[in-house]
């Protein structure tokens, strides 16, 4: 068992860390305050091959392994969880299922668009009445000659109003329940596709979340991803991979908040000494350090297992559950250490605390992770 990162993985960390420090840290507060999609950052991340990094070389990507993918999300999220989210969604939830389930023609057409073509990807599963219970979706796709006609709407879609390419789940046979769900690759320019309401959220203000609406949307038959009726399996497999991304994002948020809190408590003097000198503060940092390191082991080992081709459902759920709950705890503690300053927007920890909350909710709530984990062991 080798716990060391490879030279490439170390280099990816260094590259993304440098990029984050120089290009993202200076704008992270404004990105949040103005709810502004960081278009220029994403353009740069395409240029440097971070967007679509896990796509094989022959389709325009870098062919990076899943640990590299997790490290990139972690480093970005140390300063800006919104950027981490945009990249995690693009890589894990849009490129991921096309790499895994796409036909050769689909991969040749869409993966270069999602890498060198600088087109942003998204994933559309959730509906107003189908959240954790994804089987209750009512969006339908009816085959009509050489195309499907899609009707319905999807909500809370990350990258919703900036993406060009969507992996969408719709009922092709509502009578069959989850076995009647199919997956499709949908372009935003397909007739009948529209972006609906833009969501205003507690956190992740830089991440563009929107409703998308299909009104007799024409989806060519060849854009069926996988086979008819296998959409639910594709969604679940995709979310397994996506959860590693969210675990990495939560890890990054935790590390970013802990770093801020350490810097602050070393310089903040109360009762005649820096508050980092109080044992209460020190013990909290010790607990954060343990949680972050344990989270890294869970996340990287889930990514390593994904890379071997073995089933990693439980590992991804454990990593996501552990890292997201710790991100919430650690950012809350960080705000507490800052005292009144932590509650203001002059310091980044309140943003990190708001951003952390979603990691316990999206791509399966903590409750769903516990169901996934227990159903894999009982």
């Amino acid at each position, binding site marked *: 068992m080798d716990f060391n990162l490879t*030279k*490439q993985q170390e*280099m*990816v960390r*260094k*590259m993304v860390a*440098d*990029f984050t420090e120089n290009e993202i840290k200076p704008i992270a507060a404004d990105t949040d305050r103005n709810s502004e999609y960081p278009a220029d950052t994403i353009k740069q991340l395409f*240029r*440097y*091959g*971070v967007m679509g*990094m896990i796509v094989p*070389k022959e389709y325009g*990507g*870098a*062919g*990076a392994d899943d640990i*590299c993918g997790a490290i*990139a999300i972690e480093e970005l999220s140390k300063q800006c969880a919104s950027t981490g989210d945009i990249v995690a969604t693009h890589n894990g939830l849009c490129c991921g299922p096309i790499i895994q389930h796409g036909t050769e023609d689909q991969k040749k057409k869409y993966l270069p668009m999602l890498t060198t073509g600088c087109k942003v990807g998204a994933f559309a599963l959730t509906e107003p009445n189908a959240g954790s219970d994804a089987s209750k979706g009512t969006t339908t796709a009816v085959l009509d000659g050489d195309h499907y006609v899609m009707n319905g709407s999807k909500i809370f879609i990350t990258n919703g109003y900036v993406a060009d390419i969507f992996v969408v789940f719709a009922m092709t046979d509502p009578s069959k329940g989850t076995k009647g769900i199919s997956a499709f690759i949908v372009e935003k320019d397909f007739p009948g596709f529209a972006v609906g309401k833009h969501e205003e959220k507690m956190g992740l203000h830089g991440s563009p979340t929107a409703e998308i609406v299909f009104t007799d949307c024409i989806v060519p038959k060849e854009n069926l991803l996988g086979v008819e009726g296998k959409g639910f399996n594709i969604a679940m497999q995709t979310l397994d991979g996506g959860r590693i991304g969210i675990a990495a994002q939560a890890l990054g948020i935790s590390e970013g908040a802990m770093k801020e809190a350490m810097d602050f408590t070393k310089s903040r003097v109360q009762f005649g000494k820096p508050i980092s000198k109080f044992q209460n503060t020190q013990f909290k940092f010790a607990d954060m350090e343990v949680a972050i390191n344990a989270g890294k082991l869970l996340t990287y080992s889930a990514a390593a297992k994904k890379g071997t081709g073995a089933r990693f459902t439980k590992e991804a759920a454990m990593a996501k559950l552990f890292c997201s709950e710790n991100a919430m705890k650690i950012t809350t503690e960080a705000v507490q250490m800052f005292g009144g300053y932590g509650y203001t927007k002059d310091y980044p920890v309140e943003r990190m605390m708001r951003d952390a909350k979603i990691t316990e909710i999206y791509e399966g709530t903590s409750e769903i992770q516990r169901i996934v984990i227990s159903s894999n062991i009982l």
Partner: protein
Amino acid sequence: MKIIVCVKQVPDTSGKVAVNPDGTLNRASMQTIINPDDMNAVEAALSMKDETGCEVVVVTMGPPPAEGMLRELLAMGADRAVLISGREFGGSDTYATSQILAAGIKKIGIDKDDIIFAGRQAIDGDTAQVGPQMAEKLGIPQITYAAEIKKDGDSITVKRMLEDGFMMIKMQTPCLVTCIKELNSPRYMSIGGIMTAYEKPLEIFDYAALKDDPLIDLDTIGLKGSPTNIFKSFTPPQKGAGVMLEGADKNTCAKLANILAEKHVI
């Protein structure tokens, strides 16, 4: 056409600076970075590669761990790397270093339309001597302090920055240019570059590989071949708070002139 870029691994002086008892830098105990001006040289080469498709070769002299730095430059887009490394080269000053680097560059080969880029100076020694010395020893023209570089057939036009202005100079290739930070913003490594960095060629030139070059003699390289000796090294005392004079009237000016005269500045 190819571009050879000379780079140096230097101690990160933004961290803690450690000094040996003999006054030299304790490099082993310090984090290393790629010399900042050299990054501008690398970027200049890579952007010329983007334009012309030329080959970019990065060269450094240093201990074996300097390979890590070269791999990072390959991940940024350089095509191949040369590490000049050997015990015989240790302790070299700028004179000896330029002997060795020039011999290394000759071994790589300089063709008619090749260009050599270097950083203006390294943040450890701050001498700005190695670039110009290499050009002399290679017998090629040089321009220092480049803030703009334009390639134009078999010549390049360089904006050479001076303290109080600039010169525009046209120079025939092959030639050497030293670069300053105003020249460009260095790019990052790319993920694709990182994935292939360890597949790209990296050659090691040791003493045996270079010893037949007339520039290489045990008396012209290493500590023995270095005319520079460190006489004394010290941390300059912190300057006290300055005196502020306000106003632009005659009295204030006279007062300022008096103070400067007392200190023999004027």
